[in-house]
């Protein structure tokens, strides 16, 4: 097993009201089999043992699905490995002597709470604006009453795979949330159940996205590259088409 020595430059910020700065830490004996977050756990245990406050970062499932973990690692959201969340990034992709810079998502709509923890509740509010099909519990038809073309269901699932982590926003030079919004709009747009509210949904969600202070899309698609679930950019194109269609026909 290879053990590494690393230099970590980590963003420390006491709270939303104070200014932050990079602090440098040395870490020895990092195993290649550790996940990136386990490496930070080891750093934090050492800090707490010394009476220093550990680095705060969001995380939970550590299986790449809850979307809680974030972190800009060497300038890449979730680190340099494609299709991988920070919790699934393992240290075998780094080498002895590396200097690693770790910082929070940077976007006006995602203010820092502490260190690398940001407030992503703007995504919840976009969902509240229209990220649903307005069915109530009960009284729904039999699940097989409505056949759905396999290809449509698969496309819907491609979009629905979004984990709401915000890497798309962090990657975008405009801090746009277009890929996040397009993923939810696209999930429903490809299903017959989603047609009834299709126009209202796209207008409401984009409207809310603008209110929350996310930027606009200028079609450079860094979001797609950064997305750990590789939500395809075609959903942005489709959403734009839907948005224009909704605006013209209402």
């Amino acid at each position: 097993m290879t053990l590494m020595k690393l230099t970590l430059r980590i963003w420390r910020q006491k709270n939303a009201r104070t200014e932050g700065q990079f602090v440098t830490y040395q870490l020895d004996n990092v195993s290649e089999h550790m996940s990136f977050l386990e490496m930070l756990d080891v750093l934090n245990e050492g800090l707490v043992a010394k009476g220093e406050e550990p680095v705060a970062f969001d995380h939970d499932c550590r299986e790449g699905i809850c979307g809680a973990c974030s972190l800009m690692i060497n300038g890449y959201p979730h680190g340099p490995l494609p299709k991988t969340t920070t919790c699934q990034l393992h240290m075998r992709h780094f080498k002895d002597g590396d200097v690693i810079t770790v910082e929070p998502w940077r976007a006006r709509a995602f203010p820092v709470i502490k260190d690398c923890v940001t407030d992503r509740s703007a995504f919840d509010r976009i969902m509240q604006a229209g990220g649903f099909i307005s069915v109530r519990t009960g009284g729904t038809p039999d699940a097989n009453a409505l056949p759905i073309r396999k290809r449509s269901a698969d496309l819907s699932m491609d979009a629905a795979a979004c984990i709401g982590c915000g890497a798309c926003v962090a990657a975008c030079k405009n801090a746009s949330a277009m890929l996040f919004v397009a993923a939810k709009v696209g999930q429903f747009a490809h299903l017959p159940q989603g047609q009834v509210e299709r126009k209202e949904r796209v207008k409401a969600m984009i409207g809310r996205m603008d209110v929350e202070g996310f930027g606009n899309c200028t079609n450079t698609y860094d979001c797609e590259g950064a997305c750990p679930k590789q939500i395809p950019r075609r959903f942005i194109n489709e959403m734009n088409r839907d948005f224009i269609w909704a605006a013209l026909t209402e």
Partner: protein
Amino acid sequence: MKLDAKCPSGPIAQQWDKHRFDMKLINPANKRKFDAIVVGTGLAGASAAASLAELGYKVDVFCFSDSPRRAHSIAAQGGINAAKNYPNDGDSVMRLFYDTVKGGDFRARESNVYRLAQVSNAIIDQCVAQGVPFAREYSGLLDNRSFGGAQVSRTFYARGQTGQQLLLGAYSALMRQVGLGQVKMHARTEMLDLVVIDGRARGIVVRDLVSGEIRSYAADAVVLATGGYANIFYLSTNAKACNATAIWRAHKRGAGLANPCYTQIHPTCIPRSGDYQSKLTLMSESLRNDGRVWVPKAKVDKRSPDQIPESERDYYLERKYPSYGNLAPRDISSRAAKEVCDEGRGVGPSGFGVYLDFADSIQRLGKSVIEERYGNLFEMYERITGENPYGVPMRIYPAPHYTMGGLWVDYNLMSTIDGLHVIGEANFSDHGANRLGASALMQGLADGYFILPYTLGHYFASSKLGKLTTDHPEFKRVENEVNERQQRLTSMNGKRTPDSFHRALGAIMWEKCGMARNERGLKEALQAIPALREEFWQNLKITGSREEYNVVLEHAGRVADFLEFAETMCLDALTRTESCGGHFREESHTPDGEAQRDDENFCHATVWEHLGDGKTPMAHKESLTFDTVKLTVRSYK
């Protein structure tokens, strides 16, 4: 403590209909006068909160994550069961009910399980209507697959992300209600205690995890949907923040805790790789549909798997359980893996692993079919281990995954505290001593969408609930207790971190109260846990202050509660001298080593009553009767 399950009378198939008619209703215009607190936003909590709000109740929802969508239901991979019988392979409500009772080793309440099977079909209808993109066949109709413990294909799935898609469906419904103003959402807020007034649950005390402020909320009823306690083992498949604090605090306020020793050790997890390991990752059980489990026949065989010829491999599940083979239920598969590893035939660097081999399936079906079925799981495995499972067999080992035990509830999902309802994994109700695959999602959504919304209304309609606010002195009293506790945690200035205590507790629990338990080990655990707890309360080190975002303090509070919970769990395991489901007592086995149930003495749920700190809790029994399914030896041979 009085245990009245309140099961309806009459034939089992008509009980739920009868009960729904017998329950009292609330006029639509009056519903807005009632409010409920829902703690937890996984499948059970989110679906319950959304459904209650749709009915017109005012709902306050709490979760410790930054968003309700992070709840750990999201990590369920394989699927959700329902008795639709779409594949025409002989499924029915009765069969799903039967499989669940048998799978649970005859330690669940028949009435509840039957109802679960009955409402299972409506869940699929509901989720499809919400836009959950389940897998489909070329006909456009829904696809099904088979899962452990069943001989029919009744599992609906959305790639390897079924939990995610179902949770996002419930989350969407919840967000809609937040947008409409029916639900007030409190994210990054953790419940730290329950407030009981005149014998009824009337509110909770929480900590705002960002500001550190301790606050109270009052309501007409409290619903706990706070999940399971498998993180008591430290290493489990649960998310890092999953904890038992809400149910433990409710237990200390009077809610009976049922069968805490029933824990499920999942057979297909990625083995641990080192001391820094922070959690274990589950590989969906659905993999066992196409993967074959084996170890070398010889002990300490260090050859690489492709160098071991067929004749020197032991496909032990197929050998021991020919009719179910690799799809034997979870408890049986897990113990079989432990057995072969204890014999010295385990694989991988630690020797604690078995192979899950897809070579045959890839040859039979082609790589593309396997990729479509399990592609994302294979990728995840490769990301974690650095090995490509298309080329070399996966290595798997059992890990704590789910807890069947939990707060005792009656047929209405109400605990022994009036007004405190408990749903999803947090309660003890439907899975007996072992849960079948793809049944957790079913239960969470059944409770939340289709059971609680009725039974909570009945509670409101049949109780005389005066209005009260957090100005009531009891709220202040509980808040003070919470504050004092926080103060104690932060003021020790000791030497050990919460994480180190948690790891130490986990090691004790895994060793003594894990896959196999015996009297000596459990008694040792009952010595070791109080000692560790004592050290915790003297030697804990916490950085930062209470009045800020403080993950060390959060963790410390959860570990403190685990340290108490663990003792009752071991006591429960010690008291139940039979083997059943996920609870295997080494003293109780058949001549060929299989688990030996003892129906004469243990056909009951053990419900623990808290009698005060430092006192041994009192055991009560809810005896279980099996009128519909005959008590039989559970055989998968």
